[in-house]
C-alpha cells in the first residue's frame, strides 16, 4: 500500500464490499416466504452447537481462557518496562554497575539518585543508589543508556504501594548472590540487538 492510498480519507470513492443482505420483501407472499425460510433455517441450532462445542473444548481439551491471575501470570514481553533490576557479573558475582552515573544523568523525571566513591583498589564503588518509583515514569532511558547492561527493566509489574513515594534501594534491585545462577540475561529494552555483531564496523580513524 502506497502512502497516497493510505492518506486517502475520501471514503466515498474507495472500494468497499457490501454485505449481501438480500432484498427487503414488499409483497405479502414474499414476506411470508421470508418468515417461513427464517423459521425453518437451522441457525438457532448452529448457535447452540457453537456454545456446546466451546464448552466441550474448554472442559475436556484444556482450552480454558481464564488466567487465575494472582496464582498464574501470563508471560510479558521482554520489552516490557517494569520495576528495574540490577544485574551481576556471572563470573565474579560482583555487581555490573561501574558507577558511571549515566542513568542518573539521563533520567528525565530525576528519580535516580546515586553516590559513588573510589574503593581501595581505585575502582568506582556504588555507595548510594535509589530509584524513587513514585516519580519514575518507566521510560527505559536508564536501561538504554547503561553501557554495562547493569540496570535493566525486570518482570515485576505489580507496583502497588502503600506510599506515594516508594524508594527502591540498590540492594533490593540487585540479583541476590545465591540466585546468581538464575539470573536471566536481559534481551529487552536497551539490550544489545541479536545482530549486534554484524553491525560492528571499524572505527573510522581517517579524520
Amino acid at each position: 500500500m502506497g502512502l497516497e492510498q493510505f492518506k486517502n480519507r475520501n471514503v466515498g470513492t474507495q472500494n468497499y464490499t457490501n454485505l449481501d443482505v438480500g432484498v427487503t420483501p414488499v409483497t405479502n407472499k414474499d414476506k411470508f416466504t421470508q418468515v417461513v425460510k427464517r423459521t425453518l433455517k437451522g441457525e438457532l441450532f448452529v448457535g447452540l452447537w457453537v456454545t456446546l462445542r466451546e464448552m466441550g473444548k474448554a472442559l475436556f481439551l484444556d482450552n480454558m481462557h481464564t488466567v487465575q491471575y494472582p496464582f498464574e501470570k501470563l508471560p510479558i514481553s521482554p520489552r516490557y518496562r517494569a520495576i528495574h533490576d540490577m544485574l551481576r557479573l556471572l563470573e565474579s558475582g560482583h555487581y555490573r554497575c561501574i558507577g558511571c552515573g549515566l542513568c542518573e544523568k539521563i533520567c528525565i523525571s530525576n528519580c535516580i539518585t546515586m553516590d559513588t566513591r573510589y574503593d581501595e583498589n581505585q575502582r568506582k564503588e556504588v555507595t548510594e543508589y535509589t530509584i524513587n518509583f513514585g516519580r519514575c515514569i518507566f521510560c527505559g532511558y536508564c536501561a538504554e543508556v547503561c553501557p554495562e547492561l547493569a540496570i535493566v527493566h525486570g518482570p515485576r509489574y505489580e507496583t502497588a504501594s502503600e506510599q506515594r513515594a516508594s524508594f527502591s534501594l540498590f540492594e533490593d534491585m540487585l540479583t541476590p548472590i545465591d540466585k546468581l545462577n538464575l539470573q536471566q540475561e536481559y534481551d529487552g529494552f536497551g539490550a544489545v540487538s541479536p545482530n549486534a555483531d554484524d553491525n560492528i564496523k571499524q572505527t573510522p580513524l581517517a579524520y
Partner: protein
Amino acid sequence: METTLVQNLPEVTAAGVIIKAIIILAVISAIAGFGTFIERKVLAFMQRRLGPMHVGPYGLLQLAADGIKLFTKEDIVPQNANKLIFMIAPVITAATAFIALAAVPVFPDFTIPTWIPLLGGVFVPSIAADLNIGILFVLGMMAAGLYGPLLAGMSQANKWGIIGAARTAIQFLSYEVVTGLSILAPIMIVGSLSFVDFNDYQAGGIGSWLIWQQPVAFVLFLIAGFAETNRTPFDLLEHEAEVVSGYATEYSGMRWGMFFIGEYANMITVSIIAAVVFLGGYSVEGIGWITIILKVGFFFFLMLWVRASWPHIRPDQLMWLCWKVLMPIALINILITALVMMA
C-alpha cells in the same frame, strides 16, 4: 383435596402434606440457590471461562457467600416508592413460585419410618396438593407470579422500573395465550388436567411419550415457558443493556434475592411441567425418580444453554412472535389434534 394417586397407597394426612410443604420449600430454595451456581458455571464454561473458583472447592461455597451477602445487605426502600407494594412485590414472586410447586410432583412419596418419634408412620405424598386440575392451578399460579415484577416496577418510582413493568404487562399478554393453547392439545389427548393422569398415560416407555404425538405443542410450550420464566430470548423485563435492571432496579438485599429465588423456582416448575406433560414424567418402577430428575436437569440446562447462545428479542418482536406466529400455530395444532381424535 381429592386424591388420584394409585389406590393402594396410604391415606394422605395433613401432617404428611405439611412435611411435604416444608421439604419442597427447603429443597427447592436450596436447589434454586444452587441453580445460580450452576448457571454461572455453565455460562462460564460456554464462554471458555472458569466461573467462580475461589470460595470453596471449585467455588461451591460461592452460594453460601452470596446468601450471606444477600441476607446482611441493607434493605433500601426508595423515598418516593409506594412502600407497602414495594415491600410485598418480591414476596408475591417467591410465594407464587412455591405455591405453584405445591401441585406438581416433586420427589417420590415415602413413609417416615415408625422408629422416629412423633412423626413415625406418616405418609408423605409426592405431590403436596394432588389437585385434579393440577396443570390449570400451576399455570394460573405462575401467571399470578407476574404480579410481582408488575407491582415492583410500578411502585418503585423509577423510570426503568416503569419500563420493566410495562414490559412485564406486554410479555404476560403475549405468552399466556400460547402457554394455554399449546398445552390444550395434550390435555385433549389425555382427557385430564391432573399430572398423575398425564404420568400414567405415558407409563409405557419412551414410545408413549406425548412429545411424539405433540411435537408442535412441545416446542410451543417450551417457547412460552421461556417467556414465562423470563429466560434469555425473552428477558425483556430486566435486560441490563436496555433498562438497567428493569423491575428490579431499586431492589437490593433479600428482596432482590426473593425475585431471584422465585425466578429459579419457576424455572424448576416449568421444567417439571415439560417433563411430566411431554417427556413421560417419573416412573415408579425401574430407576424410578432418577428419570424425572434427569429430564428436569436437561430442561434446566437447556435454559442456561440458550442463555449462553442466543440474543434476546425486542418487545415488539415478542408480541409479533406470540400473536402472529405461535398462537395461529397453536390453534392449528389444536384443530388437527381434534380432527384426528374425532376421526
